[in-house]
């Protein structure tokens, strides 16, 4: 038996049936991304300055650069997926909208997977070498 009445379950959900969940998630992730932005730029700037591949790999075995990049790329691309959704809802309809949502979601997760794969591989290679 459901203790929540249909009225109680519907209140605050609005026409989207999801209430302000999307907007609130974007707000929370933007605060996190804003705080991470200077660190991310510093880390990537430092890495791009290193001339040798071995030095770059050693740099990303350190916890701080690896965690900052993993966090920023994961949160950033999730923010991108939810952000493009608003743009897609504004400009596309019907099948084009569905295709666009699928493409943007897939793209976002591919970038996340590429970054995490690279970082994980560097850590594993380092762990094996030590």
């Amino acid at each position, binding site marked *: 038996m459901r203790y929540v009445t249909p009225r109680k379950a519907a209140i605050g959900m609005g026409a989207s049936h999801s209430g302000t969940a999307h907007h609130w998630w974007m*707000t929370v992730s*933007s*605060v996190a*991304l*804003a705080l991470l*932005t200077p660190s991310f*730029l*510093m880390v*990537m*700037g430092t890495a*791009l*300055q290193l001339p040798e*591949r071995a030095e*770059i*790999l050693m740099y*990303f075995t350190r916890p701080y650069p690896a965690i900052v*990049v993993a966090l920023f*790329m994961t949160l*950033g*691309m999730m923010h*991108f997926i939810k*952000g*493009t959704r608003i*743009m897609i809802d504004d400009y596309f309809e019907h099948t084009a909208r569905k295709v666009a949502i699928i493409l943007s979601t897939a793209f976002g997760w591919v*970038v996340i997977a*590429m*970054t995490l*794969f*690279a*970082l994980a*591989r*560097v850590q594993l*290679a380092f762990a094996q070498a030590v």
Partner: protein
Amino acid sequence: MADVNRGNRPLSPHLQVYRLPLPAITSIVNRAAGHAMVAGLLLLSFWLVGAAAGGGLWDCADWLTRSWFGFLVLLGSAWALWYHFLAGIRHFFYDAGEGLEIETARKSSIAIVAGSVVLTLLSLIIYLL
């Protein structure tokens, strides 16, 4: 309908003749910047995968990232990131119901454009030093 004499009265604003106010332009650019910076993130993730994989993939990724093309993509993305950063902070104020007056929104628009250029140049100088 075309023959009806409408007199000399002004027509309602139309998209093709309506000059967008600065806060509207900076708001649209915020959306564009958010999407555009992904080019830089994609390039950086490709560069990281190349570094982890080594071999020909690394040669290709490192050459592309450090080429003048890669530099332009990364510099453009850095600007887009700082722009999105500042315009996003303005949105926190908008959401709280602050800064929505026309004059305040116009001033914050100028601050966002100028601030994003300054922060990008500052990032570039720190990078090059």
